[in-house]
């Protein structure tokens, strides 16, 4: 199992039960957000992962999912981005994230679930990430795939 974290936390992988931690230095990750930005990222050459293509408003649609699939761009959803929000913002963000995951699964995109931890106390256990993936609408095999085989194309 793998996870995307900050570069300084890479040596903590075994402690948390992961095979390896990937950082932004190894994989070309671009932070998404607004609709136009998401579209630009998935069309750009060399981008491997589009991270968090959602915000409080609907910013992810089937068109972006299709372009991402054609250009072999993986879509990543991080737990850390949800934890940073509070109140109604967290609710809206999670709702949009669930919808985006549903679209990605329908379009058969390469979906990655990660912690995207920047500090040591933001690291998460494998089972917690699987639980989060299942909350987003994945089945158990899909959740495990998103933490394991989904990274194989990026290495």
């Amino acid at each position: 199992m793998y996870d995307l974290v900050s570069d300084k936390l890479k040596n903590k992988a075994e402690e948390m039960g992961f095979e390896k931690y990937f950082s932004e230095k190894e994989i070309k990750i671009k932070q998404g957000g607004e609709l136009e930005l998401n579209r630009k990222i998935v069309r750009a050459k060399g981008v491997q992962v589009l991270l968090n293509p959602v915000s409080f408003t609907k910013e992810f649609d089937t068109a972006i999912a299709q372009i991402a699939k054609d250009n072999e761009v993986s879509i990543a959803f991080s737990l850390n981005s949800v934890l940073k929000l509070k109140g109604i913002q967290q609710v809206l963000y999670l709702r949009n994230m669930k919808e985006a995951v549903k679209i990605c699964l329908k379009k058969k995109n390469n979906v990655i679930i990660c912690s995207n931890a920047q500090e040591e106390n933001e690291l998460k256990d494998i089972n917690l990430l699987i639980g989060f993936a299942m909350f987003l609408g994945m089945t158990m095999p899909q959740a495990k795939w998103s933490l394991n085989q989904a990274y194989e194309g990026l290495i």
Partner: protein
Amino acid sequence: MKPFPPILRERRRYIIFKINSSQKFTKREIEKALTDVVFRTIGLFGAVDSSYWLVKFYEDKQVGVIRVTNEFKDVLFACLAFLEEVNNHKVILKLIKTTGTIKKAEEIIKKLNY
């Protein structure tokens, strides 16, 4: 009184976890943090259905056991993913093992070298 038939009895799972933090916590503090996070994520109805309970917490090892119904095991994992702080201190929660009996859970905790 007629005993409850096995098919109607709820099946339980015991989740062994460890708290990593610079601070040591008491059972009451962990219980409060757990209740807060469960209520914040799945609410009252979810908490009732899951019938979660902090069965044991070894304060010396900072290892504990949560009981939950087998259907709500993954839901509780998702809840625990949102647990960041205990008593205003940042923590890392690590899940060690899920067992079917409390006896087995205790055996696993005894073998732990923390």
